[in-house]
């Protein structure tokens, strides 16, 4: 009894002393669930990507890199990859560029009722994502708002077909659909800037424009970087927008992945495509992070 009492006391003391142990004990449910539904499926996907499909739900389980060779040599996938990256990069750039002045306006030029403006900016995003994308089909379509409006006004005689089913339509739609993910991080980073820094810059002789480029912009870069990553990564993998407004010219890599898991019925190839696109996105993101880090250091 005494020995038992002593060992439990020892254990309890050890627990009380080791913060790491207590922390991980508390964190363990979260880690276990996240690892269970994330890491294990990923390992499964890696294994599957090394197999070969030989029939419906039948696989040859000899390990081979053939699927990856297909992904990296097939002309079609190269086109889809580069188109996805270009479309996402353009979308990200445009979204951030358009959202920045808006966030700047609310952060620095709205004195009262800031919250009202924030609600006003984010309210459209309470509409279903699908419907927001679909709205652009309604606007840009053959019988859509722009065409029927222009016809009604007599500016054109027959509907313009150039509006929909191309990469530009995808970019416009995504720029609209992801706007909130640019406005909010940029707004937060602008709002955090200590106003006395701006006064100090003016006091030291900066014009408003110089002050913006030397103080405000560099200090808001963390928000810009966050916005960029939050938009670029999901849009590369978006499947809805290219399907609805992209047409065959606007197909992106996510459509190819979906095809392999759907009608294409080549799951190992689909897995290889998924892993490759993830790898590409990760590498780009890391490079971007490093570049933006050195850039902000240079500004300072």
């Amino acid at each position, binding site marked *: 009894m005494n020995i038992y009492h002593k060992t439990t006391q020892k254990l309890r003391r050890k627990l009380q002393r080791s913060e790491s142990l207590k922390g991980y004990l508390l*964190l363990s449910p979260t880690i276990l669930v*996240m690892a269970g539904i994330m890491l294990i*499926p990923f390992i499964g*996907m890696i294994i599957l990507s090394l197999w070969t499909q030989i029939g419906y739900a039948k696989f040859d389980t000899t390990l081979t890199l053939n699927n990856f060779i297909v992904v990296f040599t097939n002309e079609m996938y190269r086109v889809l990859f580069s188109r996805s990256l270009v479309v996402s990069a353009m979308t990200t750039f445009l979204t951030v560029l358009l959202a920045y002045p808006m966030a700047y306006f609310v952060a620095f030029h709205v004195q009262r009722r800031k919250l009202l403006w924030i609600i006003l900016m984010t309210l459209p995003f309470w509409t*279903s*994502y699908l419907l927001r994308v*679909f709205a652009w089909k309604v606007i840009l379509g053959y019988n859509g708002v722009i065409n029927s409006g222009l016809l009604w006004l007599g500016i054109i005689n027959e509907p313009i077909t150039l509006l929909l089913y191309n990469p530009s339509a995808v970019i416009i739609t995504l720029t609209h659909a992801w706007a909130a993910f640019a406005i909010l991080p940029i707004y937060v980073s602008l709002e955090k800037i200590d106003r006395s820094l701006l006064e100090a810059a003016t006091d030291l002789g900066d014009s408003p424009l110089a002050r913006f480029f030397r103080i405000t912009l560099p200090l808001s870069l963390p928000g810009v970087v966050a916005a960029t990553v939050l938009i670029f990564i999901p849009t590369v993998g978006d499947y809805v927008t290219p399907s609805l407004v992209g047409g065959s010219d606007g197909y992106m890599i996510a459509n190819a992945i979906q095809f392999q898991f759907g009608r294409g019925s080549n799951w190992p190839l689909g897995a290889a495509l998924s892993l490759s696109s993830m790898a590409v996105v*990760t590498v780009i993101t890391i490079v971007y992070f490093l570049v933006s880090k050195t850039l902000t250091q240079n500004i300072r």
Partner: protein
Amino acid sequence: MKNTSRSLLVYAFIYLGFLYIPVLFLPLFSFNNSMYFSFPLSGFTFEWYREMFRNEAMHQSLFNSIRVGGFVALFSTILGIFGAKAITRYRMRGKKPVLAIIMLPLVIPEIIVAVALLIFILQAGGSLSLLSVALGHVLLCVPFSIAVLISRFEGFDQSMEEASADLGENSWWTFWRVTFPVVLPGIVASLLLCFTISFDEFIVAYFLSGTEPTLPVYMWNQLRFPKLLPGVLALGACILLASFIVIAFAEWIRQRNNNMALRQSLASMTSKIR
């Protein structure tokens, strides 16, 4: 300065127009007496709203989405509480890499999460159901929940829990009497955010829902059939209105509390002067 302010204001209104106009076409066409979305509008009708109330399949998918969203919100927030609490409370070795792994779904395209889970569930011999959708959504939501809760827990003064222990409460009662009420606003925010993400999520649900569609999956299937589409628009308009009411209500409560605090502090100031 004045000029900058004015041109920025003009820009702000143009930008708001860009954000709002596409979205506002949806409720507009939900009252239009035609299944085609073109101008000029042909006439006013409530037909699509009547259609919405009749459509059993749509009700079922809405109900599915609410069930999944509720489960996901609760489960993700509980996991988020454990995670955020551990991260803000304890100095742990290797905290950064562990946190990075938990936050990883934020930087993985959704379609890849969806495909990985699809492979896993089918290879493990499971079948697709609302539960598999919910699992996928938990994966997407936990990072958001942790992010929201960490910012709330960070403002939490550690000595409040110690004060409670010092006044005789064990850790269970301390949690219920001090920690929980203080972080409650963060928990509510996390629940709302997770529900919203799950309720609106399409890609994971599309791959994993099997024969029980969630609302976005149902909508997706209808987008190809013009006949049923205006009913979907009517539902979209209703959801927009409902979320607007929720936000307005939350804001009203916040303001009222602020006013109360203001009034009380005014009263205390006047009493001090006297």
